[in-house]
């Protein structure tokens, strides 16, 4: 048994501490130690994007990051997207309204990638959306409705004054 270390970090707005082994990936610690199974494993080598999370606001594959690298940093997973009162993030609502998921296994990763995109480019073009989502594989939808959902959120938010932005964290 390898020696365990205490990992402390901010997860979805809360300070968390967890024991983990040095070889454990962030994905393993999220899923197996913290039981946050919303972050999915599709390939474990950074090819599919199902495990995407935002680390200090930057989009990363949690399967390619050692958990201990997250020491003292801030993490957002799919479980932190909606408000605590249950109000869905606009991207979550748009995915539902546009039927942008079929089986749903890739959806958490897409939501995080789309959030990273809109944080950086509030009004992206279609090709910008496709570029930012190219690290996320979806085998069900052909991406059409996903791209439309993201473009729809961007246009809706652009039409609103910034104060009503519902983006938490």
């Amino acid at each position, binding site marked *: 048994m390898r020696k365990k270390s205490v990992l402390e970090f901010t997860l979805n707005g809360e300070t968390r501490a967890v024991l983990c082994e040095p*070889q454990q990936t962030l994905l393993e610690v999220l*899923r197996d130690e913290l*039981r*946050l*199974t*919303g*972050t*999915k*494993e*599709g*390939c*474990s*080598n950074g*090819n*599919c994007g*199902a495990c995407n999370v935002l680390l200090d606001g930057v989009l990363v594959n949690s399967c390619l990051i050692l958990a201990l690298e997250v020491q003292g940093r801030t993490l957002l*997973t*799919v*479980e932190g*997207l*909606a408000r605590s009162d249950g109000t*869905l993030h606009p991207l*979550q609502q748009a*995915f*539902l*309204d*546009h*039927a942008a*998921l*079929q*089986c*749903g*296994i*890739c*959806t*958490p990763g897409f*939501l995080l990638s789309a959030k990273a995109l809109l944080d950086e480019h509030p009004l992206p073009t*279609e090709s910008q*959306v*496709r*570029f930012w*989502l*190219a*690290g*996320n*594989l*979806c*085998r*069900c*939808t*052909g*991406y*059409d*409705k*996903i*791209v*439309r959902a993201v473009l729809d959120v961007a246009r809706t938010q652009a039409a609103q004054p910034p104060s009503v932005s519902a983006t938490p964290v």
Partner: protein
Amino acid sequence: MPSVPASSSETAAPAWRVVGTRPVRPDGVDKVTGRALYGADLSLPGMLTGRVLRSPLAHARIKKIDTSAARALPGVRAVVTSADLPRAADRIEDLGEGAINLRYLSDNLLAGEKVLYHGHAIAAVAATSASIAEQALALIRVDYEPLAPVMTVTEALKPDAPLLLADLHTDRMGQRDAAPSNVASHLRHERGKLEEGFRKAALIIDRRFRTETVHQGYIEPQAATAQVQADGQVTIWSSTQGIFAVRSQVAEVLGLPVSQIKVVPTEIGGGFGGKISVYLEPLAVLLSRHAGFLPVRLVMSRTEVLTSTGPTSGSDIRIRIGADAEGRLTAMQAELYYEAGAYPGSPVGAAAVVSFAPYACDTMRVDGYDVVVNRPRASAYRAPGGTNVAFAVESVIDELAESLDLDPIEMRLINAVREGDRRPDNLPLSKIGYVECLQALRQSDHYRTPLTGRHRGRGVACGYWGNWGGQSSATAVLNSDGSVGFNVASTDIGGSRASLAMQLAESLGIDYSQVKPRIGDTDSVSYNDVTGGSRTTFATGWAAYELGQKLSAELRQRLALLWEVPVDTVTRQGDGFAAGEKRVGFAEAARLACEDAPLMVSTTVHPKGYGAAFSVQCADVEVDPDTGKVTVLRYTIVQDAGKAVHPSYVEGQMQGGVAQGIGWALNEEYVYNEKGELLNGSLLDYRMPTACDLPMIDTVIVEVPNPGHPYGVRGVGEVNIIPPAGTLANAIHRATGVRLTALPMSPPRVLAALWDKSGYSPFA
């Protein structure tokens, strides 16, 4: 089976209240918030982690397996090999999308005398952690006698080819060959006098095609958990397309009565046919039994998924078609050689039916051969077998149309099958919407807009799929607040909770939001076939319709008793019921009716009137002459849905099937070396389409109601994957003048064909 209500006839297109709308799916919030539990998300107290040892060799005899060192490793709780499997019966089980021989299934789960492909499972381990399980695998010693691998049809058919299965003899439509062979079976469909038909032709095109092995590519790897209790009761949690298919397979290969097995479905992260056969479930049961009845979870890695599950057949195909000067087809001939992988069971039978199904021709012959090779055992993949053969047939039809100076849609309209025409296997077609689809594409904005620009071309192709009905069961429970609990056993793989709840709401005359669907386990819902064959919205939808009718009738009876009036005076009125002066809304009716006794109805259906599906597609492509890369500029799908219950999810099926078809056509393939080792067992190297590789995919839903369903529904899930390869091959030809006859039409292949045409040889 009650008769179909008159209102579904096409003459009076009915205005449904719920069917045809686009509500949010009932499981939607769970799936966008990360709460939905998929196969690998399950966790049980005391749970052990399982891992599987797989063969590094493609073809070898197993001389000895020594597991003693693995068993001795601290933390290892169980090790199993084929010695722990009972000898399975040599019996065929039909699981909906293809029959499975149970002895072969058993040998595929854990190799016995031989390993037959790179990645073939040999042993399984359960341990207290993943890292201990992995260390244990490394301690298992396997002595092999390597054998020459047989990787393709061509190699398998050679007279001196090594035999994969010593007891396999070619079945020729019931006649068994004396000598063993790598050809499992030969089937033939025939009508008319073939050579007479070809003599009537003004033009005959005869071409050979090759398609490579491809994988379904679901994003969720296979995952299964099992716990055996001390009394022998087994519970399995599985990410599967069919909980009853899992139950029957596990029962057969482990020699258990079905009553001893309960299968609980998790959410499923894609399947496309690949999650019908079991791989992990029986191993998890064996491990749990040997590990002191602790639960054991097995989750595949992506490499295991690619080496050891799924794929659909590569194929060698010959197509020969004759047409007269007006474009009428005079004779059609197909020879289909499908690679089954390690054990018999390629989808060549379905391919033989798909082949010429869109074409009305009274002279045709289709020969199909099921050939074993040292690749993973083929399993169903969306319209199994269809894409390969349609790529070949649609390419030849396009060549005929071009040679005869006919528009490709006109060519297909001249020869289009209609209701009553026969498929290649001579079964007549029921009411279909094929001609309507062709006409809708011809009138579409896409087809009417000329394509301009260099290196660009437009292609058209069509596809037929028979669909399936199968058996479905469901239960509805009326709650006293007027809502309805709705239990089904059809795995929801792409929004079927919504399409089923909508049909129950429609039938019962209540709001969609009042129906609460739930996917039950094998002990809570009666027998139900797999989510496959494009059957769920059709057949389980039939069950939903029946539940609505039954509940409504029961409510009227109870109200009649309460109101002391004859039951036939109680009628539906607005959102409730009425009799004379008396009137109640639905929720009040539910409260009154359930006061003394709860109300629950169940039904089991086996509808036979599943209508066939047709899809007609059009693509514009641009071919880069320097790299051979094909870019899809515009894509339109026209498909007959009968009636689109939830149009967004119908469009989603169409777009998703085409995206898979585009990947199959342009890039996806299994790459093996000469030793039979899979070289591209990752999602970086087995490259499926990304968002950057595809355009928006336009959809046109044609609705020619299926008379075999109360709302006119016909299956929509599969047919869309059949035309893309032909559509793109035809587009590439129009763009470059080069006709590609092998899939995938990847940049190196396209470039080689362009160089070949121009006489350029850079390496000369």
